[in-house]
């Protein structure tokens, strides 16, 4: 079953049409990466899922229940981490989690236990300072802890990794990955390598709708560029090779850069042997021969172009 479904969402801010017709669904136990340019409406979409802002039209369902604008009961299924989590600076992490627990209606004894577990999980145990002295990374971790407090079925994180250094990013991604074992995770980001690292589903938000959606590996298959990179032993062999390659009917482009020839071609699978035969018959020594993997970046650029 789909844990989240959005149907024909439209959102205008005054005369600005941010979302025109957004449709998507997220199935249980997936890690869904929502990508899109600045201002494409990622945060807006997330806030609508939480009932914090009202769609101009359209409806959203969480666990089959319709999201109501204002106080929505569907939020009991959700843990949310905003892009810049703001806390009460005069509290300690423990006090803040206690407040969240009491609001969610977690039992008192349970709150204590969960708080200890979560602070350990995000590496904030033993930090007894007030939150106002926290770094952004620490706030982000505390944000994750509060989002996980009610053991949500759906975890929504808005640009969790944007403010973090590579080490912090890896830690947070590992946390999300682990959370993905129990919950469904939706997270937005600009950092495409983060998406490639942990997501299994992606959606690309562009022009007010989800222009591309599906399993990451399938999407990468579909956008597979037929490209090769061949590196010759010496620089003078590269142009020779390029000239020979260009003569082959299925090769559309062969560009030389130093010792490397960048090749674009059609139907690699059927024609690969011809290339190998050419290399052998012309006796061109090869240092490296690589079929280029499509990157999410190529896909993204392609979609938003």
């Amino acid at each position, binding site marked *: 079953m789909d844990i989240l479904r959005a149907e024909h969402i439209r959102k205008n801010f005054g005369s600005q049409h941010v979302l025109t017709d957004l449709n998507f669904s997220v199935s249980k136990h997936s890690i869904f990466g929502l990508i899109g340019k600045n201002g494409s409406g990622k945060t807006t979409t997330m806030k609508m899922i939480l009932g914090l802002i009202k769609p101009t039209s359209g409806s959203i369902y969480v666990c089959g229940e319709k999201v109501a604008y204002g106080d929505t009961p569907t939020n009991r299924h959700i843990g949310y981490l905003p892009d810049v*989590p*703001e806390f*009460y600076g005069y509290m300690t992490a423990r006090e803040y989690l206690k*407040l969240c627990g009491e609001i969610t209606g977690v039992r008192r004894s349970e709150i204590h236990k969960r708080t200890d577990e979560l602070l350990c999980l995000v590496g904030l145990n033993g930090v007894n300072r007030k939150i106002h002295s926290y770094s952004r990374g620490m706030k982000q971790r505390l944000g994750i802890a509060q989002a996980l407090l009610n053991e949500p079925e759906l975890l929504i994180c808005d640009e969790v990794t944007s403010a973090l250094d590579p080490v912090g990013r890896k830690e947070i991604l590992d946390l999300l990955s682990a959370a993905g074992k129990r919950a469904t995770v939706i997270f937005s980001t600009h950092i495409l390598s983060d998406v490639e690292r942990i997501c299994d589903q992606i959606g690309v938000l562009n022009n007010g709708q989800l222009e591309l959606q599906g399993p990451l590996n399938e999407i990468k298959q579909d956008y597979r560029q037929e490209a090769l990179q061949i590196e010759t032993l010496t620089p003078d062999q590269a142009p020779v090779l390029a000239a020979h390659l260009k003569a082959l009917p299925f090769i559309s482009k062969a560009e030389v850069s130093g010792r490397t020839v960048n090749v674009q071609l059609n139907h690699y699978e059927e024609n690969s042997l011809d290339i190998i035969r050419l290399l052998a018959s012309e006796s061109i020594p090869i240092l490296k021969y690589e079929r280029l993997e499509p990157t999410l970046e190529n896909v993204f650029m392609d979609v938003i172009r």
Partner: protein
Amino acid sequence: MSGFTAFFKKEIVEYLRSYKALILLCVFIIFGMMSPLLAKMMPDILSHQAINGITLNIPKPTFYDSFGQFFKNLSQMGMAVLLLIFGGVLSQDLSKGTLIMLLAKGLSRHAVILAKFAAALILWTASYAFAVMIQWGYTLYLFDKLPVPHLFFSLFCLWLFGIFILTILLMSSTLVGGAYSGLFLTTAALGALIVCQFIPGTDRFSPLALASDNAGLMTGAANLHHAVTAVWITVILIVSALAVSLVVFKKKSI
């Protein structure tokens, strides 16, 4: 209304840790101590200013003057302090974005408004009560007791006016965004009330009467009947402002 108790506790802790509670309490205690002293010393202060040998003949201050001074201080400076302390009552939480995570956790929006109102009400009432007790004690100590008609009613009027300010602040901050716009809107509303007072016949119905007729009620200069009308009007305004806050906040984009 889930989360009322938790959020109410948070409000109280916030007032304590941001020293707002302490400041409010101290200021009002100072008002309670200062007013009788000021009333007592007023003749001395004035006679020192007598110039060119003209001696001012000032009547000996009484119990009335002490409370007159108290009402004057509280209805002007006291209300200004109230505005400053509670100026960011909801605006601050909204503009900083601290409410987002709590609302996403299922905190009810009605609970937010009611908890904020309850906490502010308690703080105001406590500070006011302290001020009144100290004022009472000092006045009894410094002056001879006189029968004061409607003193309690007068005190009640000022208390109610404080609540009126609190609810207008709360309502304003649900209506407009920004960290201090609630405060500005409230100040504007009070300004409008002051302007309205110049329309003949309206002054006695205005909530402002609750903060300006207090001394008059004691001496009999102000009409009790009018004051009671103003009380009812203010109560209706308070309830309406709360209702508007609840409804508007429920439907606010956050």
